[in-house]
C-alpha cells in the first residue's frame, strides 16, 4: 500500500518537474539538438538550397581547410584578437575597476560615465568609431595631425584595422569594470591592514593580496573574453562595410574582411559561405569548427574542480 503511494508520489513529482522544464525541453530539442545533428549531416552534403542535397563525403571539409581563402586568415585574426584584445580588455577592465574603487569624490558620476559606452548598441558604436577614426575628416586624426603625430589609416589600413577594433572593445569595458569592482570590494580589509603592518609597498599589496583574491574573476574574464571573441561578428563586419564604402542593398555583394581580410572572423565565414555563396555544406563545416572552439572554452568555465561557474549546489 505504502509503496504504491510512494511510487505515485514520485511519478507526480517527475511530471511536475517535466511541466516546469517543458519550455526549455522543447527549445532544447527544436533549437539546439535538431539543428546540431542537422549541421553535422549537412557538413557531408553538397547543398545549395535549391537542388536536393547529395552526399559529398569529406569534400566540404577539405575545401574549407585547404582551398577556402578566408578560413586561415579568419583563424589568425581570431588568435590576434584573443592574444591582444582580450589581454588588453582584462588589464584595462581591472585598471578601471581599481581606479573606481579609489575615487572618493563623485564616485557615482565617474562610475556612470565609465559604464555608459558598454550600453551603446554594437552597430551604433561601430558606426560612431568608423566616423571618429575615418582618415578623411575624423576628429581623432584631425587632433593627431594637429599635434603633429602621423595619423594612421585605422579601419582602412590592414595593419591598423584590428587595433581600431581593439580601441572600440576597450571603450565598452563597462561589464568587466562592474565585475572587477565587485570582486575588489570583496577582498578582506584585514589582509590589506596586515600587509601594511608588514611594510608592504602599494605594488606588493596589489601583487600579494589583491591578485590572489581576485584571480578566479580574472580567469572568468579571460575565458568569457575568448568565448566572446569566437562570436565577434557585428563590429568587424560593420567596420569593414563602412570603411570600404559598400552600400547595403539589393545587388551589392560585400567581400568580407575589408581591408585585405584583416577583419575576418569565423562567424562571418558562416554567413559568407551560406548566404552569399549558397554553399550550405561548407558553411556547416565552419559552424562545427566554431562549435568545437566555443565548447572547449566553455568546458574550461565549467570544470568540476575549481570551475568558474558552479553547476552543482
Amino acid at each position, binding site marked *: 500500500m505504502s509503496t504504491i503511494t510512494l511510487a505515485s508520489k514520485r511519478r507526480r513529482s517527475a511530471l511536475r518537474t517535466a511541466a516546469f522544464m517543458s519550455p526549455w525541453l522543447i527549445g532544447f530539442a527544436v533549437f539546439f539538438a535538431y539543428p546540431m545533428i542537422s549541421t553535422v549531416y549537412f557538413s557531408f552534403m553538397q547543398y545549395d538550397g535549391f537542388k536536393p542535397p547529395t552526399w559529398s563525403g569529406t569534400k566540404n571539409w577539405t575545401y574549407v581547410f585547404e582551398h577556402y581563402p578566408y578560413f586561415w586568415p579568419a583563424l589568425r585574426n581570431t588568435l590576434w584578437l584573443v592574444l591582444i584584445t582580450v589581454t588588453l580588455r582584462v588589464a584595462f577592465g581591472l585598471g578601471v575597476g581599481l581606479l573606481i574603487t579609489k575615487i572618493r569624490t563623485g564616485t557615482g558620476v565617474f562610475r556612470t560615465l565609465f559604464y555608459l559606452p558598454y550600453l551603446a548598441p554594437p552597430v551604433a558604436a561601430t558606426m560612431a568609431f568608423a566616423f571618429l577614426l575615418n582618415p578623411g575628416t575624423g576628429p581623432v586624426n584631425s587632433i593627431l595631425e594637429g599635434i603633429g603625430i602621423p595619423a594612421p589609416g585605422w579601419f582602412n589600413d590592414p595593419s591598423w584595422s584590428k587595433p581600431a577594433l581593439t580601441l572600440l572593445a576597450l571603450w565598452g569595458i563597462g561589464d568587466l569594470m562592474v565585475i572587477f569592482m565587485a570582486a575588489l570590494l570583496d577582498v578582506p580589509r584585514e589582509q590589506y591592514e596586515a600587509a601594511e603592518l608588514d611594510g608592504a609597498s602599494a605594488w606588493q599589496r596589489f601583487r600579494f593580496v589583491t591578485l590572489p583574491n581576485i584571480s578566479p574573476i580574472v580567469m572568468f574574464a579571460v575565458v568569457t573574453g575568448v568565448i566572446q571573441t569566437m562570436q565577434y561578428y557585428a563590429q568587424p563586419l560593420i567596420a569593414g562595410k563602412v570603411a570600404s564604402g559598400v552600400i547595403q542593398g539589393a545587388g551589392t555583394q560585400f567581400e568580407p574582411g575589408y581591408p585585405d581580410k584583416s577583419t575576418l572572423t569565423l*562567424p562571418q565565414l558562416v554567413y559568407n559561405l551560406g548566404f552569399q555563396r549558397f554553399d550550405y555544406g561548407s558553411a556547416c563545416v565552419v559552424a562545427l569548427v566554431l562549435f568545437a572552439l566555443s565548447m572547449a572554452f566553455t568546458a574550461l568555465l565549467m570544470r568540476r574542480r575549481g570551475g568558474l561557474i558552479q553547476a552543482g549546489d
Partner: protein
Amino acid sequence: MTQVLDRPVELPAPVSPAERTARRRAFLEWIAIHSLGVAVALFFTLPFVFVFLTSLMSDSQALSRDLIPHTWEWGNYAKVFDTPGFLTWWKNTLLYAGAGTVLTVVSSIPVAYALAKFRFRGRNLSLMLVISMMMLPPQVVVIPMYLFWAKQLDLSGTLWPLIIPMAFGDAFSIFLLRQFLTTIPNEYLDAARVDGCGELRTLLRVVLPMAKPGIAAVALFQFFYAWNDYFGPQIYASENPGAWTLSYGLESFKGAHHTDWNLTMAATVLVMAPVILVFFFAQKAFVEGVTLTGVKG
C-alpha cells in the same frame, strides 16, 4: 585692541610632522587619482560628444575637419525621421524587443525555478546544457534553422523566426534567473507548502514577488539583446526592408545619404539614446544583473 570673542576658538589639534606628511601624501594621492579619473572619463565620453556635435552640423560642414558646428542644425533629426522606413524600423524593433522580452521572461521563469529549487535526476546535466547553449554562437546552428524557418515555414522576410523561439526559454535568462532564485531561502517555500500551496502557487505567490530584481535584470538584458541584434535580422529580415530593425537599418544610412556623416550620426544618436534612457531608469537592476552573471566568489 582686544578682540572680543563670543565663542571659544577651536584651535586645531597640534599636528605632528609625521601626520602632516601623511596628510600631504593623501592629498597628492587624491589629486593623482582624480586627474586619472578625469582623463579616463574623457576617453569614455568624448566619442559621444563628437558624434553628437557632428549630428548637428550642416551638410557642407560635415565634410570638413571642424569639430564644432558653426550653425546648429536641429533639423537633421527631423530629416532622419522623414527617411522612408525609419519609423517602420522603430516599430519593428519595439515589436521584436517587446514581444521577445515578455515571451522570454514568461517561459524562462518556471525552468529557472525548477533548476534552482527542485531535486531531480539530470538537474546538473540540464544546467550544464543551459550554460553550453548560452555560450553557443548563433552562427553554429543558423544553416538548419534558416532552412527550417525559410523553406518549411516560409517565414523569411519577417521577424517571427527571431520572436517565436523566445517562447521556449532563453539560456542566458534561465541561467541568470536560476542564480538569483538559489539565493531565496528554502524556508519561505517550505512555509508556503505547509500552508497547502502547490508548486505553481508557491512560484506565483511567494517566489515571484521576491524575485522582482532578478526578473527586472533579465527583462532588461533581453530587451537590449533584441535592440542590438544584428545577425538575426540580417539572416531573416534582410530581403524585406519592411521588416528591418534599427540596428540592421542603421548601416544603410551611410549609403542612402550621400550627404556625409551628419545624418548618419544623427541616426546613430537616435539608436543609442533609448538604450541609455532605459539604463538611467533601471540602473540598479542592470548593474545587479551584471554582477550576478559574473561568478559567485
